[in-house]
């Protein structure tokens, strides 16, 4: 097996990314307000957490380097790592598409409203993962968000944005 396909290599990459994040977070804490005569500054606790993260990230980094150097097949770190190749792995591509859909969902949540936005995202995901029964897709993707909205709106009195379907509230209130 190629070194780059092992868990040890994945851990190495993760360690480097984490170290960059931890240094960035630590630098951010240097800009926190300083309180005179305080035994513990507002920055102290986050700084301790950043340092703690750094210590164990370095340990993980060293463990990964040792595993990659030894290449011992009994080492659990020499097992194949999960794929994150967005160019070759169709599953990863689909996962990323779901993430993009979720981001669009958040952006359009207020404009379209919960029921419409949810119906669209649910229908697209069902189609994406291979469901081809159009009747079932439409039925499930519309009825479930509608039912959820009804439960929250009428039973739990939680007001959920309905966007373009706002007149539905008046209709339900009349009933």
């Amino acid at each position, binding site marked *: 097996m190629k070194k780059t396909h092992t868990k040890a290599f994945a851990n190495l990459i993760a360690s480097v990314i984490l170290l960059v994040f931890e240094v960035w977070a630590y630098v951010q804490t240097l800009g926190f307000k300083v309180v005179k005569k305080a035994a513990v500054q507002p920055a102290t606790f986050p700084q301790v957490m950043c340092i703690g993260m750094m210590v164990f990230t370095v340990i993980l980094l060293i463990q990964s380097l040792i595993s990659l150097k030894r290449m011992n097949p*009994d080492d*659990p770190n020499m097992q194949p790592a999960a794929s994150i190749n967005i160019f070759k792995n169709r599953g990863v591509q689909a996962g990323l598409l779901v993430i993009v859909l979720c981001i669009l969902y958040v952006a359009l949540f207020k404009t379209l409203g919960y029921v419409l936005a949810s119906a669209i995202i649910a229908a697209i995901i069902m189609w994406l993962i291979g469901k081809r029964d159009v009747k079932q897709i439409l039925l499930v993707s519309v009825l479930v968000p509608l039912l959820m909205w009804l439960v929250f709106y009428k039973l739990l009195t*939680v*007001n959920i944005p309905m966007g373009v379907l706002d007149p539905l509230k008046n209709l339900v209130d009349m009933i």
Partner: protein
Amino acid sequence: MNWSLLFQSYGSVFLNPQVLLMTLLGAVGGVLLGAIPGMTATMGVALLIPFSFGMDLIPSIGLLLGIYCGGMYGGSISAILIHAPGTPAAAATLLDGYPMSQKGQSGKALSIAMFSSFCGGVIGALVMTFLSPLVADVAMEFTSAEMLMLAVFGLSVIVAISGQSIAKGLISAFFGMLLCTVGLDPTYSAKRFTFGVKPLYSGLQFIPVLIGLFAVSEIIAGVERIINGEEKQESSNEKINEVLPDLKTISQIWPQIISGGLIGTFIGAIPGAGGDIAVFVSYGFNKSFSKYPEKWGTEIPQGVASTESANNGCSGGAMIPLLSLGVPGDAVTAIILGAFIMKGIQPGPTMYVDKLDTVYCVFAALMLANLAMLVVGCCGVRFFAKIVSVEKKILYPIILVISLLGAFSINRNVFDVGVCVAFGVVGWLMNKFEFPLSPILLALILGPMCEQNFVRFMDLNGGNFGAILGRPIAIGFFVVAVAVVLFSIWNQQKINKREAEARKAAAKEANK
């Protein structure tokens, strides 16, 4: 113990139609969710917690405990019928449950699982009723030093739940603690990691983060598995005729039920140790003391009884540290703690003085949740098996839209939906790189407690941390925390060694 108040509280819970209904609904939801492989009681509670927002405390706790107890039992249904444990805590049930099912005894196995779950749950609830006030009495002496070390003790179990890599578990934990510091500093109101984003001033909300990490990430991973053809669609056509075990069977399994219930309660009471550990300990213990250990793992009813009573016994055990110390015993009680806090109640020793009636109502609600689980199990055992056949291609999008609604409904804020999605991505990536998610959960709960008590202790002692040496209970907690860490490291090394040997043996077999 105030007996009249205890009976009064039991009466107010058992005679309140809203509590009865919510607990029953929770049990139905829990059993249904638990029966779906991959859906844990934790995920069920996280998904359904938004439904409890509009309710009073006790009905909402009844709902959550119903899901908890129902989910613990539900996991055994798919374990027995299709060899796929619905929850990690049901992993040991399939050792004897599935062979029973294969020999045409599905009904018997399911009824034993249900009856044992109920008995284990009742044992846990009784032990909780009588033991947690004693723990709370000691906890009344706690100052910031003890609370700080208690949080450290709670965090020490992170090592036990870290899985194969302790370094990764601790990185997750420190990351979770760092997330707790987002927002205004609780002592001096200094802005930390807010970047001018106003909704971040109040910090990251626990529930959207939780739903994102556990539910949204699982949906993204599920979609990925379906596309890669790695997701199996389970199905079951079993016919079930028996609902409760007969007297002869009960006389065979009662010792395993009692020992399993007690083991489950004891392990559940240790913060961080949950049903998944308890079932294997109980199975191993009962097998060791059995007259015919060689029969275990074939089709023995005692095997099912020992594991199922242990995993439901955990529910009562996990409530002991939650109510008496304010430290959650496992991931589900961590979410229940969130529900208490949202209702303005901080569990802990003072609750036994200020809100004793609420404490007794929680005891009663747990007892009721176990009864509800038995009722739901009896009525639905024939139909629950069918849920494993729900198509994942429909299930995942449904769970997604329910999850995102759950994230929104807490503060009625779209920002929280964004936080939920963001943590869904974080959780998905962490799963890819095999970083455990549970330590983040524990850190999110215990982080604020840790920081606040650390700052208070340092302020009171003029910045002299050495003053903690004069607090024997705090030192005791610290010593136990160190012992837990060392034991967990030793235990993990043993597990890793065993796994390596199994891999070697499998490789040898393959070469032959």
